């Protein structure tokens, strides 16, 4: 490891994943940053490693009834229900805004059948501004009793294989943490042709209003995110990094540079910041600055020298 010096160049934060160059390893997590434009007044999108969009489906999706979110101890539950404008409206109405920036755009998408996944991927394939696709497999497979693709290694393998055939873009598969052995789904996604894995999506959770005796979410069950889940996310990323050869993006409860560093040290090549954007629209800029400062203080010339340096 080359030691940098205060008098020398600033530490290099750029990382390369699946052939895409990111100016730094920090990007938003899908669903917490809208289509980018919502946060543009507060944060220069050119500062970010990438922009990751809200999850898109073949057709526009209404989402769940309200209440859709609920704060928990150091976390939040959400059951938005994947409300989105649909892939075509996205390409038509949202992409032009994002193309103004020099930042790679990663489009998150999902389907309720294997074919829907394939079709969305295909429609995005020839959109020039799209740097990569992120396939969210935490969705119920309506053709198989609603079992979530990501919790069934076979369904995950089949869906990823199909998507792989329908896109030439780098394919990131986003894993669900709600499984007994994440190494199995990770390998299934890798074997099916994923270029990158990202994790974790939210952990399923629930909260009850003890006065009304009703669940706090209209959907009863939702996804837990935020600082509370970070130790679980770090463990899962650590396990996945050991199970696969392809790069991994770490997600879950990151709100400070210190948090991002935990993921990089266990071997993530980049990180996504979710709930923290709600708490501070400037969170990612602060994290990027914090990574630079940490590298400087620790004499790390290139952040790539830090990735995967966990000492066991």
């Amino acid at each position, binding site marked *: 490891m080359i030691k940098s010096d205060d008098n020398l160049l600033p530490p290099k934060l750029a990382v390369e994943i699946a052939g895409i160059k990111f100016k730094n390893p920090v990007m938003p997590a899908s669903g917490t940053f*809208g289509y980018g434009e919502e946060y543009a007044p507060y944060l220069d999108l050119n500062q970010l490693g990438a922009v990751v969009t809200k999850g898109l489906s073949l057709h526009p999706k209404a989402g769940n009834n309200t209440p859709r979110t609920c704060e928990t101890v150091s976390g939040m539950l959400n059951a938005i229900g994947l409300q989105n404008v649909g892939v075509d409206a996205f390409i038509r109405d949202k992409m032009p805004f994002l193309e103004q920036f020099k930042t790679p755009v990663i489009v998150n998408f999902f389907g309720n059948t294997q074919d829907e996944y394939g079709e969305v991927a295909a429609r995005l394939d020839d959109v020039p501004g799209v740097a990569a696709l992120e396939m969210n497999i935490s969705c119920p497979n309506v053709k198989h009793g609603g079992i979530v693709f990501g919790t069934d290694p076979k369904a995950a393998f089949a869906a990823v294989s199909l998507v792989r055939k329908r896109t030439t873009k780098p394919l990131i598969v986003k894993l669900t943490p709600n499984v007994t052995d994440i190494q199995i789904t990770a390998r299934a996604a890798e074997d099916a042709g994923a270029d990158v894995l990202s994790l974790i999506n939210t952990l399923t959770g629930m909260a009850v209003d003890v006065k009304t005796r009703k669940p706090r979410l209209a959907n009863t069950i939702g996804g837990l995110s935020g600082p509370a889940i970070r130790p679980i996310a770090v463990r899962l990323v650590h396990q996945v990094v050991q199970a696969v050869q392809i790069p991994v993006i770490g997600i879950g409860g990151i709100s400070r540079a210190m948090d991002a560093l935990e993921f990089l040290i266990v071997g993530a090549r980049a990180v996504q910041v979710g709930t923290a954007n709600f708490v501070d629209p400037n969170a990612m800029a602060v994290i990027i600055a914090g990574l630079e400062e940490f590298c400087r203080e620790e004499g790390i010339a290139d952040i790539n020298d830090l990735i995967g340096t966990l000492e066991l």
Partner: protein
Amino acid sequence: MKNIKTIVLSNQEISPGYFRMKILAPDYSKTSQPGQFVMFRVQRSLPPLLRRPFGIFRVGFMPADCDNMPAKEFIEIIYKVVGSGTEIMQRLHQGDPVELLGPLGTGFDCGEPAEEKILVGGGIGLVPLYSLAEKLVETSRVRLLMGGRTRDDIITVTEFERLGVETYVSTEDGSLGEEGLVTQVLERKLDKYPKATVFACGPMPMIEAVQDICLSRGVSLQVSLEALMACGVGACLSCVVKGAGHTEIEPRYLCTCTSGPVFAAEKLDWSKTEVKMVKSGGCK
């Protein structure tokens, strides 16, 4: 609209359970519109995790600390202590660091000058009506119908009166003003001024009743809604309400944080149980 790290200038209990907080807020006089709100970060550390939305009561100036400094621009919010976030807020002191994201959302449309304007406020729902009244009194006759459960819920009425707003107070228990619901008073006023425009903010049952009244009389109504918010900027899709013409097949969700919090009544879907998104309060 931006996020500023700032400080509390003062924080005082103005009625049992209701606090009024002054926060240093440069530029708000230029940028904020009546009916807009802020996402308030209670403290740098947890809890609470998420910011809390509060209407802007008013924007003001304080004399500069010394000759060569600019006057201090501030906003005031008024809040009721209801849960974990507001419990921490009530203990904030002058000088404590807080963060403001704002001004956010779509505020009131002041409409044509010189019409009769009726403001209907229920409890803490009064808050966004003050800046509105400040603007409306410049051109129109303004009446405020203020309702609450008991007299403790009737706040800042004097300040509206100082603006020249005619105020009518009613409480459910009769402990202040007329006994009964604010909607009774509204019916009487509308009998007298059938061409008035109504602006309402308060608990959902009150808003629904006001909407029924205005709809049946063909009176123009704007309502300011509350909804559970995570981001306040249209990114999380937590705060949606159903817009007019919403169906399961062709959903029309509107974000309260961007399309609202103020909506023209005709933009919303008023079929019962639809708009009551925070009926059960937040999560503890």
